[in-house]
């Protein structure tokens, strides 16, 4: 049986999409996902969306530290015993 050429169902491809994007799959699994994406438009949509979700998470990383919290923490540092 040629492992790399084995077909996988959508459920399996979808389960592996994020790891695929992370390059965290074994070469065999990677090849199977690529093989699946080559003929499955639905999963291509899932893949695009997985990418969007990753970007979405990254773009929501930053945040403003409230001024009073910042000042309070700075005072805390200054008062660490010396």
């Amino acid at each position: 049986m040629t492992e790399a050429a084995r077909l996988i169902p959508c459920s399996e491809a979808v389960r592996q999409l994020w790891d695929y994007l992370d390059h965290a799959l074994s070469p065999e699994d990677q090849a199977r996902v690529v093989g699946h994406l080559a003929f499955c438009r639905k999963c291509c949509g899932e893949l695009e969306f997985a990418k969007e979700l990753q970007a979405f998470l990254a773009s929501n990383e930053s945040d403003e530290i409230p001024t009073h919290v910042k000042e309070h923490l700075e005072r805390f540092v200054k008062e660490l015993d010396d």
Partner: protein
Amino acid sequence: MDKGRGRGANGEGTHISTGTKTDFERLAVEAIPRLYVIARRLAGDGAEDLVQECLMRAYRSFSTLADPQAGGGWLRKILVNAYRDRLRKEARSVQEVAVDEVDDFSLYRTIAEEDPFPYSDSVHMDFLHSFAREDVHAVLLRMPDIYRAPLVLRYMQGYATKEIARMLDAPLGTILARLHRGRKLFERELWAYARQAGLLQKGAGR
């Protein structure tokens, strides 16, 4: 905690730039905004307290910091360590979610099927854009810590999975499994939140 004096006793005239309280203050003050942001994503309302814990720990071991350039990353690791220890103490860490409970959920499919913005030709993007920053924060805080932490560290802070395993002191396989479930949980909670918070009502796009 007598860093300055300890140094002085070791060798007259050997100036070590990472040694003094002033150096620590400079490093800490610069790092505080980013530390707070990470702490808030990890610990929600406990963020400020967590940063304080981190700063106390860091100050105690400041003399072990060899490269002052690496001070920011060093502080962030201490922060994640402090968070991990806190979880352990609170024993909130065992909230495993059954795999099949979340594994079959596909946000992509759900959005396509429910079609919350019928007049849109990019319904998936419109869905994501309906979330303000605080909405995303709220969604993350609905997740159990053990799933939220790897997700935040991987996709918001950009740490490699191996690094996350080291910081959270868990086997890599465990972190990978939690990341996987965490992504699914996040998708499911995004959808649930959007419905509950009324983000899907017609014209509710921001």
